[in-house]
């Protein structure tokens, strides 16, 4: 088992290195970070542009720039933005904001997906199944920005009117100049979290519940379930102890893989609710062609994707003893 994990980790190192080369080439060829400076009226003297190029290291050949960047990166130095702000604390701060939005939503989505998927499978071809199936397909086909905007423009306003005061907020992760007691702040955070959480949870729920339904159906068709029923175990015991336990294994890995992508995946939802998280940072990096922001962003998310893929593999091997650690 341990050797399996180590072997898997060893494979991921060249993968991450290759990804870093790919990311670097991609960013180096995307947009000119000095476009803003060059296009300025009245024109900026060429010496200034040259000095800036030198500062960003743009005057050196590509392999040298890559080496400079990667050696700094592995030591934890992600460089500075074009405006001279350190990237690492910036990225860290943005990631915390995104995490706040994503963690609760994912948990809710997992619970909902398991419940709906299992119920759908157990009551296959009944009204319950059709309802959940239709809901799953509907949210699978709904653009997250549309659902989020719908809740923002219609749901939030109605709800606030109903309560007679502002209970759900539609902009940002917290009220500006937030102060006061702990309870007061907590209520404020919660009020800001409601809508993004529901939007994200419903969208993730859709795919996962379909998946859970399919695996549960597979398990229910297996011979050992028939055996368990035949030897006289109660239906509920068979469902929970025999079927559900095994039907959860594939979902665990799917969720683990998706979690890696989720750090960058809330780009759209952040945009709708004006959260300054990872997504906003990416958009900012793209719009200003800021190489260090883009490099750090892409590297961190690809490392997370690789890491969670690894976790998924290991979890799968741990949970399913039939898997050979080949």
């Amino acid at each position, binding site marked *: 088992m341990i050797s399996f994990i180590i072997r898997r980790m060893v494979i991921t190192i060249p993968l991450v290195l290759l990804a870093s080369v790919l990311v670097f080439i991609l960013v180096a060829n995307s947009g000119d970070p000095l476009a803003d400076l060059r296009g300025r009226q009245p024109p900026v003297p060429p010496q200034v542009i040259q000095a800036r190029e030198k500062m960003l290291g743009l005057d050196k050949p590509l392999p040298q720039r890559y080496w400079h960047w990667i050696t700094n990166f592995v030591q934890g130095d992600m460089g500075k933005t074009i405006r001279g702000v350190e990237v690492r604390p910036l990225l860290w701060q943005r990631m915390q904001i995104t995490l706040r939005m994503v963690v609760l939503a994912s948990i809710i989505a997992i619970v909902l997906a398991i419940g709906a998927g299992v119920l759908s499978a157990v009551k296959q071809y009944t009204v319950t199944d059709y309802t959940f199936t239709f809901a799953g397909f509907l949210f699978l086909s709904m653009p997250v920005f549309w659902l989020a905007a719908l809740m923002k*423009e219609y749901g939030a306003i109605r709800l606030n009117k109903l309560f007679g005061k502002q209970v759900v907020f539609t902009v940002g992760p917290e009220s500006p100049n937030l102060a006061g007691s702990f309870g007061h702040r907590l209520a404020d955070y919660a009020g800001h979290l409601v809508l993004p959480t529901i939007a994200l949870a419903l969208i993730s729920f859709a795919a996962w519940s379909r998946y859970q339904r399919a695996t549960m159906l597979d398990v229910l068709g297996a011979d050992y379930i028939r055996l368990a029923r035949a030897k006289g175990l109660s239906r509920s015991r068979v469902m929970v102890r025999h079927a559900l336990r095994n039907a959860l294994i594939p979902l665990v890995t799917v969720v683990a893989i998706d979690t890696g992508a989720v750090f960058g995946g809330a780009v759209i939802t952040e945009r709708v609710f004006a959260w300054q998280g990872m997504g906003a940072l990416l958009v900012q990096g793209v719009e200003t062609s800021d190489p260090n922001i883009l490099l750090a962003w892409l590297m961190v998310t690809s490392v997370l994707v690789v890491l969670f*893929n690894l976790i998924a593999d290991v979890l799968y091997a741990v949970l399913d003893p039939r898997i050979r650690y080949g």
Partner: protein
Amino acid sequence: MADTRVPPGADADDAGEGQELRRTEHGAQIHEVAATTTDREFTIAARTQTQMVLRRFLAHKLAVGSLVVFLIVVVASLIGGRFWRYDYADITPEFSSPPSLKHPMGTDSIGHDSMAQILRGAQKSVQVALMVALLATTFGALIGALAGYYRSWTDSALMRFTDLVLTIPAIALLAVLAANVSETAGNWFFIGLVLALLQWTYIARVVRGQFLSLREKEFVEAARALGASDARIMFRHLLPNATGSIIVNATITVAVAILLETALSYIGLGIRPPDTSLGLLVSTGQQAATTRPWLFWFPGIFIIIIALTVNFIGDGLRDAFDPTQTRVRA
């Protein structure tokens, strides 16, 4: 996953029906034999694999209905704009007017006819999605086929390459690339190309899995013994057996591509003004969601209709290609 060979037990309904048919035909033939002399006593209509899949698909009412709606939307979006009385760029004197007979989906604040704009937007979205499905499926199937058939180092190299592509979040790569070539960035062809570059990985994995098991089958050994080349075995013997899962995944790719393209356009990195797309229309309509709700609702509903029907078609196809998957034995 989807095995195109029909498992013996699963086709019980069809077999029963077939026998019924044969019996009556038999009876009919006997009467006729007296009058005319035929060289065969009775005929058996053997259904091909395609016919069986088609029959099962047609029995799936939701999927067939979805296919009809989807085709209507596709045709309307691809050529409907030409027949509608307004062009998407036309500015009419009525601005911010709610849906009426003259403007079935209203107009925006400048006076654009919303229906013309939605048709244009849907056209771009559908073009992107179909292109992505075509390119990603072809490329993914090719990579998966090579990896699954040759195994060993070819497999390792191709699959590590697939992993590498998977590490880059789709939206990030799109954002970076779309900003890169700003002259072509708003171009649907470019966006489709970039999306296809990322979407092939899933199909490659599925096809590889199928090829890994199919290549061990006896009919492959027989083909090889007869002197068939690798290419012939791959394309004439293995690929047809993987068609089911390839087609199903291609439909899923269409739905994913539609949603990705609209999301990208929504954040301003996809199709750009003066051209338009459904995501862009939702993005501008959102500001007016409470005052001019039609600007927000119609493009959103169009996206959902396209994605939903495609998903239902995919589900119907999955059932049609693999009747065992949805049947519970217990």
